[in-house]
């Protein structure tokens, strides 16, 4: 196990820069998730750590060792690929033992390492099968088993759950988290799914366009997003964002572009006269209150009701614990918890 450091890491393909100076410190044993929309450079960053992509600038360290010029085979890391990358001509046991076989390990040594790993992952009865004969979830487990057998310094996961169906994804999520708690190996995990990031990570790195937008614990990002991008990316359903300015009369309320007045907590940091964005998470909106909302769509999930409505001319998503008996087109009255409201500068996107 080891810590991992990215120090001003850059990567460009020709003249096209894809990683534009990334600094991250990952503690020994930490579970870090790189998250961002497709094309933000998160997979490239992971592949640079694995040694599968050349590093154009900066330095990557595993433990105390700079690995910029260390070939992948000598970095002592294990990676789980999106398509699992299982060797189709080898049985499950041989797949898991491949790294040991390469090292010329003895049969008994291989067995003492493969067997426990297979047991942890519930693969013991599948050891003689070939990858083709396995389901998606089983293949995923074999890929993880291959990584566990290595007992590496760092585990890398490149969107490992994106080929699985929704139900399996949820259970594999738990399994991976459980595995990390058990093995406590430093883990770097890439996903575009913010729910995966929120549920599994010790620390999330939100990336966009080759840069880091924010680094922090899941709830820290949720409660205190640095900017509009992080605010919109983290959380599902996404944060509602309404454009407008402070009330010129007293500066203690927010007025949207179409004249709807929304509450603000005292001591907010908005400056009068500038264009602002009013951010309210769906669960910060409650039933009953001074703000009229027209209901467009209701999505009851049993536990809660998600309502898409319209306040003024802006679409707003709300999540209510109550069961609603309204129909699309009807009006309901809502209130917004001012303590849970974020104000952003509309020009820079920075949270005030």
């Amino acid at each position: 196990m080891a810590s991992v450091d990215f120090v001003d890491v850059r990567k460009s393909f020709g003249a096209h820069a894809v990683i534009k100076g990334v600094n991250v410190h990952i503690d020994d044993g930490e579970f870090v998730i790189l998250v961002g929309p497709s094309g933000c450079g998160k997979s490239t960053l992971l592949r640079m750590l694995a040694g599968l992509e050349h590093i154009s600038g900066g330095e990557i360290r595993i433990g105390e060792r700079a690995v910029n010029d260390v070939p992948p085979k000598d970095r002592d890391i294990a990676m789980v690929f999106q398509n699992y990358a299982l060797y189709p001509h080898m049985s499950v046991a041989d797949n898991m033992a491949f790294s040991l076989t390469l090292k010329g390990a003895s049969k008994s040594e291989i067995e003492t390492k493969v067997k426990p790993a297979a047991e942890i992952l519930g693969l013991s009865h599948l050891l003689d099968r070939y990858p083709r004969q396995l389901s998606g979830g089983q293949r995923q487990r074999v890929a993880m088993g291959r990584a566990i057998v290595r007992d590496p310094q760092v585990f890398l996961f490149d969107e490992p759950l994106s080929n699985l169906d929704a139900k399996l994804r949820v259970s594999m999520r738990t399994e991976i988290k459980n595995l990390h708690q058990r093995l406590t190996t430093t883990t770097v995990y890439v996903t575009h799914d913010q729910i995966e990031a929120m549920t599994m990570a010790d620390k999330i790195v939100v990336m966009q366009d080759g840069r880091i937008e924010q680094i922090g614990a899941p709830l820290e990002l949720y409660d205190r997003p640095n900017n509009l991008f992080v605010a919109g990316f983290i959380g599902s359903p996404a944060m509602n964002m309404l454009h407008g300015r402070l009330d010129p009369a007293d500066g203690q309320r927010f007025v949207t572009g179409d004249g709807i007045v929304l509450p603000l907590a005292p001591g907010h940091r908005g400056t009068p006269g500038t264009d602002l964005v009013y951010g309210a998470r769906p669960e910060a909106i409650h039933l009953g209150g001074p703000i009229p909302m027209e209901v467009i769509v209701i999505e009851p999930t049993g536990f809660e009701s998600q309502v898409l409505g319209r306040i003024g001319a802006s679409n707003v998503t709300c999540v209510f614990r109550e069961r609603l008996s309204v129909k699309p087109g009807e009006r309901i009255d809502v209130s917004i918890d001012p303590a849970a409201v974020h104000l952003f500068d509309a020009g820079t996107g920075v949270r005030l």
Partner: protein
Amino acid sequence: MSVSAAPPPRATRASRGSFFERLSQSRNGLGLLFMLPAAVFLLCFLTYPLGLGAWLGFTDTMIGRPGVFIGLENYEYLFRDRVFWLSVFNTLFYTAIASILKFALGLWLAIILNENLPFKTFFRAVILLPWVVPTVLSALAFWWIYDSQFSIISWVLMQAGLISAPINFLGDPWNARLSVIAANVWRGIPFVAISLLAGLQTIPASLHEAAALDGATSWQRFRRITLPLLTPIIAVVMTFSVLFTFTDFQLIYVLTKGGPVNATHLMATLSFQRGIPGGALGEGAAIAVAMVPFLLAAILFSFFGLQRRKWQQGGSD
């Protein structure tokens, strides 16, 4: 899909109409109908000549004289014919050496072309040239290259001071054998290289990456990932390559006509030599038929080689 659903009742239809009606509804009937043109073509141009050839082998037909059935006499004669056995040896030697060289060099070329080298598409196109040039044309070019006086190879070696007299490429039995093999290899490499390149491209890059992370050196990746995953394609490609080489005719006929002293006579060229210029159609046909067991053996070998490996079976994707 089932097409056996009962047709709607049409009691008033004439019986002729209902025959076509039934045919158009019958899976087997239609299948046979659609296969008919191909079957006729194969019967006329493949089965008939093959059958005629096999029959001629049992006769003493000469050009201009219809023969009579003489049983296995042609084969008994060939069994005692040293030239025939020499041609069998030549054919096996030619096929074995040329195939091994084509495989090794073709695989090597395919691996190089699979790397990220500049002008990749250009090289991939150029590599096909020996294959697209008509054999007779390239054989004529080799004829010049191997010429006893004007050979460019001899000239270069003499200029370099390595030899003092031109090499007698096609005049010495072993030189001639190796020369025609070299020409055949030159011509056959593109087919092997391009087919294996196609096979290499079906191997996902992530397998190599996974193996590299697992600690494999490039040789270990080749030996344990590339080669096993390529075996099904190697089996197909090499079967075809062996069949093409075994039945080679044009190259030999243009370069040496089987000489010197029959040293490069293959079974195919000997069969033609005896049958057409020599006029002994029956005997020529018998030589050609004698190739069949060898070809069958090659096909059976590849059939078992081609059988899907255990790892390719089962599963849904």
